[in-house]
């Protein structure tokens, strides 16, 4: 049930598209970096336990 957007459909859809894409990119990047750093920290902690 798409609402009737009339002649401005392109403008409305593209601004929603751009905003959602940017926000999704930000969320995904934050989560990816978070996961990577967390893995590295676990490795570092494990190393420390093994050696010391």
């Amino acid at each position, binding site marked *: 049930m798409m609402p009737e957007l009339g002649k401005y459909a392109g403008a409305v859809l593209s601004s*929603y598209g751009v905003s959602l894409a940017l926000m999704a990119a*930000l969320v995904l990047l934050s989560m990816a970096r978070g996961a990577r*750093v967390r893995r*590295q920290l676990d490795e570092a902690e494990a190393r420390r336990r093994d050696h010391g």
Partner: protein
Amino acid sequence: MSLWEYANPQKFMQTSSVLLPFVSVLTAVCLVVGLVWGFFLTPEAANFGSTVKIIYVHVPSAMMAINAWVMMLVTSLIWLIRRHHVSALAARAAAPIGLTMTVIALITGAIWGEPMWGTYWAWDPRLTSFLILFLFYLGYIALWEAIENPDAAADLTSVLCIVGSVFALLSRYAVNFWNQGLHQGATLSLDKEENISDVYWLPLVICIAGFVLLFVTLVLVRTRTEIRARRIKALVARERMG
């Protein structure tokens, strides 16, 4: 029990890991409800046509672009005065979010401007101020990235943030002086007369709440990442020492 307890990284990690699921779910709910309501269930405005729907991403992102900078200013001051690392790291975590919000506000504004004013870009005071804000975010992030010593980086970016805030305000005034604009006035204000009509108001408020919550969630996630990254640095340094 005081606010400063959360300045302890461990305490912050504990509390934020409890909070995070709630905040993220709330964020998702608000954003979905607000945007779906705004996109599917609001009527067209007489003089805007369907472009009025852009307001649900444009206004919240613009508000968050400014609020993120204010939050960075506050956390920078806290860092400089009380030397809490979490505060400095939170400022660092917030900057890319603010930058993204600025970009969203600029792009949706440009897309909206084309059918309404007949141009994607005009050197209108509000638009220009946002472009300047965008440059400030870029400089701030670049300075964080450039300095290796984390404490020096936190100090210098805080100083830049404070000086930058003064100049950002000054630019806002200067730009107003330089050109009178096309941009319509505030859409939300305490003065009821100026407010947009109720049909649009409620979904807009939900969207704003969603964006605020999204900001909080992301700041929590990213600050946790920064704290972990610092811990890794410390561990690696200790390993090298031997």
